């Protein structure tokens, strides 16, 4: 029962330079993000495509270095880790990539892919190596005899299971899953989600689950973060987020996830997508200015701060900072 969080991100910013010749100062994929994940408390990250969710996933697993800020995994500063410490980090945190099939080498058997972490992080060799691979495959619902096959021989659901198996084979404490079910048939999704729940229980895992559809996080996430354009717009315990979303973007996102299709055309979530790439928000003003029901006069010129609106529930919104009572009265 450690006090320190499994993963701690402090003021993470990650920008990508633009291609040569384009002078727009680059793209800021993550903009001053701070969050932590505590063992036993799975976390959900929801947001539209382009919000920076995958970039965040790669940063948490130390595959991508932040431009500024620090990433600590189990206390180790990933930016200054020695080789041995880096190996310890890789062992602690596993990643299931969004493109599960693409994350397997088409020219090598799945046995090789699954055994690679074993080879690198453990001293398991020989027949025991094969046995371990077989066991983890069976545990995720496949047959050990299939380890000699190639990735393209498996269906979408099976590849997802293999990706999960690979992430689990060295018994990590945290697994980051980037859109684990969005490419799967609706009928297979429940199989995978149930599997993840069972595994979390059996292997004492904590998850960071990334999704664009909040309904996937139901029953999986204890705390959920809503992301947009590189910032966290709202963070709260999942139940509370669903019951009492405060940020207008969150409200519309949840509405749309239910496919209840309210007055769809005018929700902030959809309108926000229509802004062309070149005017990707730099957050010097609020990007929802102009389409937001809570708009104040300063929204177009001020970077919205993150404000605590209830215990453990924060929103990135100027309106809440300036006049919380007025917002509450307006039913926000």
């Amino acid at each position, binding site marked *: 029962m450690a006090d320190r969080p499994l993963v701690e991100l402090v003021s993470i910013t990650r920008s990508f330079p633009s291609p040569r010749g384009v002078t727009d100062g680059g793209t800021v994929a993550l903009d001053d993000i701070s969050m932590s994940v505590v063992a036993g408390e799975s976390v959900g990250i929801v947001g539209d495509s382009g919000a920076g969710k995958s970039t965040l996933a790669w940063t948490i697993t130390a595959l991508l270095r932040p431009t500024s800020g620090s990433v600590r995994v189990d206390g180790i500063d990933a930016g200054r880790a020695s080789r041995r410490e880096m*190996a310890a980090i890789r062992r602690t945190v596993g990643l299931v990539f969004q493109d599960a099939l*693409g994350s397997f080498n088409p020219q090598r058997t799945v046995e090789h892919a699954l055994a690679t972490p074993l080879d690198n992080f453990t001293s398991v060799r020989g027949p025991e190596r094969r046995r371990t691979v077989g066991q983890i495959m069976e545990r995720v619902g496949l047959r050990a005899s299939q380890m000699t096959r190639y990735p393209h021989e498996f269906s979408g659901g099976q590849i997802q299971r293999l990706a999960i198996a690979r992430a689990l084979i060295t018994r990590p404490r945290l697994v980051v899953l980037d859109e684990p079910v969005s490419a799967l048939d609706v009928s297979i999704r429940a199989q995978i989600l149930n599997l993840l729940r069972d595994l979390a229980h059996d292997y004492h895992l904590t998850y960071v689950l990334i999704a664009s559809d909040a309904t996937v996080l139901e029953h999986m996430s204890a705390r959920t973060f809503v992301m947009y354009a590189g910032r966290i717009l709202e963070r709260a315990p999942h139940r509370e987020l669903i019951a009492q979303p405060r940020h207008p973007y969150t409200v519309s996102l949840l509405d749309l996830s239910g496919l209840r299709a309210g007055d769809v055309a005018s929700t902030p979530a959809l309108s926000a997508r229509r802004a062309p790439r070149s005017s990707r928000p730099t957050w010097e003003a609020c990007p929802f200015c102009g389409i937001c029901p809570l708009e104040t006069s300063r929204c177009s010129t001020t970077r919205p701060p993150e404000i605590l609106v209830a215990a453990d529930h924060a929103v990135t919104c100027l309106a809440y900072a300036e006049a919380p009572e007025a917002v509450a009265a307006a039913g926000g």
Partner: protein
Amino acid sequence: MNEQLVSLEAGPPPAVDNAARDLSRPPATALRQAVAGFARDRGAVLALVILVLIALVAVLAPLIAPFDPNVGDPLNTLAPPLTAGHLLGTDDQGRDILSRILYGARLAIPEATIPVIAAAVLGTALGLLAGFYQGIGGGLVMRVLDVFFAIPLVLLGIAVAAALGSGPPTVILSMAVVITPYIARVVYTTTAQLKHALFVEAARASGSGELKILVQEILPHAVPTVIVYGTINMGAMIVFAAGFGFLGLGAQPPASDWGAMIAYGMSNLGSSPWVSTVPGLVIVVASLAFNYVGDGLRIALDPRLRSRA
């Protein structure tokens, strides 16, 4: 029938295996698939048989050659094929052509295969390293190789012969040098593309170091291409080696070099065409055999073409 979800299970849940429907075919190891794909191409299989025969001949020549290839029978010069005792006739010194062909295989095979194998090993290594690490070193390596691209094979052979003397080592060295850039470039391109592949990042996430990634993840992509390319090149090497021999840069007389044999027969081409023609035909057959095998390998090793064959 409109009950609630609870009754979706009217009885015990069916005993279903969530695990993959087990494919009825045996596991598709690369080897097995490649062999199956290859076997479907009859031309390739026939060509392979021919190559195996040639190799056997090369090994067994001393045992099966009817005559000593270097000893001529002055009484029996320029005998046409199907003369008693000389299936393929004799040359202007009375040496049995069949025996010389058989012994010639002992020169031709190494001269065709060794350069390609050496080039494959060296070229692959260079291509992998240059493609993966890029940078100044990588660029330099590829530029140096580009220089070798530009050198005509024969000129290089002559230069090497001037330094080292004529003979099989000269032939082998010259051809290896010329082929290496081709292979290196092919491997370089593959590596440079795959460098950014997602499975490479996944291997990194699995803890693999850069060198390990290069060998375990990227090299397997280059191997099939190199095998195919190399095999087809061996067909060309047969011809080039013969060319060297023809020019006198290969094994020196009285050695039975196929190319040199063609040269010997040139002066009698009109009256005794078989002296040059027979070795020429053998060269063509051997070269084609390598090409067919290479083509068969190409189809066998490319998963997309394999299932259609």
